[in-house]
């Protein structure tokens, strides 16, 4: 009981910090917090595809890009924000579904390389199809959204907007992974052959895992565009996909709160390290390596192991007691 109290207090503190801390930050701090919220959404999507369903994807960055471009192109054409947002989600869902098909044939590193290729192809399209994307010059001149007469123009306003989106996305995710689907996704990861023979339609679940994960990426991209108010191809290279992957693994893949932590490390840590000037990336890379060496299952993996160890100790004691109770026949 006391543990749940601790957890609840901790939760309230974090939520409180997310709501009130930005009020004390300068515009840059707020921007970083918004970026964290947006990256968390994308990482959450990848966590579904990779962490729960076990489908290695190196294309999440491309989906963020697709979402961002959809919104930027449509907003520039005067569609407001909400319709483009919806379309971005629908498009990334559909493309994600299609990208799932290779996963039906190949797994693990093979799948990783198919998705890697896809992500590079998407980058080339962003860069080369100038008629649509303005190519390397990028798209500018669209504004942050407003809703119900409330504008999200100012940094702090837009931050609360992204925070709201994050809450929405987390709620959806929490519900999804706790539904029977969540268990079926895990079954895909753990033992697809057995799952199939238990009636789990592994094809559809695989496609769904890709589609939903990608749509979360698209959602995140749709928020990224108005955050930066400029979209060009450079942020959506393979590096972004790799970064998101790193966030998921470092936070703890397959754990609900993994992406929150991972994104915090991926987005905030480089900021905190800026004092180190040119060395900050070196320190960051070192930090990630040391962290992974210490906790190869991610930060939450370690915490879970600790909790499991405590439970096991109890079971172990019970077994020892029972064993001692047996007399020699």
């Amino acid at each position, binding site marked *: 009981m006391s543990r749940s109290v601790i957890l609840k207090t901790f939760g309230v503190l974090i939520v409180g910090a997310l709501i009130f801390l930005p009020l004390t930050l300068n515009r840059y701090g707020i921007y970083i917090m918004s970026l964290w919220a947006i990256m968390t959404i994308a990482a959450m999507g990848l966590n579904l595809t990779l962490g729960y369903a076990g489908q290695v994807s190196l294309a999440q960055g491309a989906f963020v890009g697709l979402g961002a471009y959809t919104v930027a192109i449509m907003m520039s054409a005067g569609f407001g924000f909400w319709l483009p947002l919806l379309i971005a989600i629908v498009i990334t869902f559909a493309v994600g579904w299609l990208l799932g098909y*290779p996963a039906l044939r190949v797994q693990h590193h093979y799948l990783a*390389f198919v998705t890697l290729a896809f992500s590079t192809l998407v980058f080339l399209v962003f860069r*080369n199809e100038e008629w649509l994307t303005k190519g390397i010059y990028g798209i500018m001149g669209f504004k942050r959204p407003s809703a119900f007469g409330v504008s999200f123009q100012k940094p702090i306003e837009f931050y609360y907007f992204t925070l709201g989106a994050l809450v929405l996305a987390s709620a959806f995710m929490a519900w999804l992974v706790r539904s029977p689907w969540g268990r079926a996704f895990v079954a895909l990861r753990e033992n697809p052959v057995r799952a199939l023979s238990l009636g789990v339609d592994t094809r559809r679940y695989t496609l769904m895992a890709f589609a939903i994960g990608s749509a979360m990426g698209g959602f995140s991209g749709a928020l990224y565009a108005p955050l930066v108010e400029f979209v060009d191809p450079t942020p959506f290279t393979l590096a972004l996909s790799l970064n998101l992957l790193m966030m998921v693994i470092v936070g703890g893949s397959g754990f609900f709160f993994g992406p929150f932590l991972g994104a915090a490390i991926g987005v905030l840590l480089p900021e905190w390290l800026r004092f180190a000037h040119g060395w900050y990336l070196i320190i960051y*890379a*070192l930090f990630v390596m040391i962290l992974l060496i210490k906790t190869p299952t991610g930060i939450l993996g370690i915490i879970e192991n600790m909790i499991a160890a405590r439970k096991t100790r109890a079971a172990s004691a019970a077994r020892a007691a029972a064993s001692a109770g047996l007399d020699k026949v």
Partner: protein
Amino acid sequence: MMNFINLILSGLATGAIYALVAIGFTLLWQTSQTINFAQGEFVMVPAFFVLATLNLGMPLPIALLVGLALSMLVLGVLFKNLLVDPMLRHGVLPLAICTMALSIFLKETVKEVYSAEASPFPSFLPEGNLIFFGANISIQSVSIFVFAICAVLALQAFLARTSTGRQMQATAQNPYVAKLLGVPVERMIMYTFLINAALVALASFLISPVYLAKFSAGETLGLAAFIAAIVGGFNQIRGAIVGGLLLGIVDNLAAAYISTQYRGAVPLFLLIAVILFRPQGLMGRAEERTV
């Protein structure tokens, strides 16, 4: 026709470079199930060991030896002991991520410590061109080509023919069983990483005169090597050669006859097609299992 020969020859030359990088990549996979995202950087770094030694006033042959030794130490022993050992049993992914971080680390360190500029790198091979079918091709390229082929043949024979090679493969497939059969698992893994380090060092010495020594040189190279390895067949060393050469040629033909803007896309389509229709790669053998 002349153009075509030119394209093929120069594709082969570039392809040989890819192949050289891909070999180590395949080797690491085949003998320790490690996907090394820093493989490109591994090829970039030894050149800087050599340059640093040259700056101390050493002659080139000494500098090359020092470079080789430092590579074996840093990219072989330290890499294995500090990174791979603690992570190997946790599966492919965390280690792969770790190598991504390592690639950032190596790149940025070279940039901060040495320079962000491309530096010319002395070649230990004679300059000059040979004439093939009327087209010029540099001695450098021919040497890379020959060296890549020799490296593959030697490694292939080593893995397939010698007991040590077989033990290395056994270790990769199932370290648990290997251990209980008495395979010195630790030592086998160490061999793998030492061989890889030696390979990347040699690749670095051969390639850097063409590619220049630059902190970012590994990026394109690493990616191309990935693709080459997969296309050729991840579980066969000789796949790296086929994959590398094919990639070099396809890249050139695509740029010449399809589109330069999308030249990067064509090898990727090749990659996707190969993975989907022949996942074991052109040279690889299928992995089948009964349930």
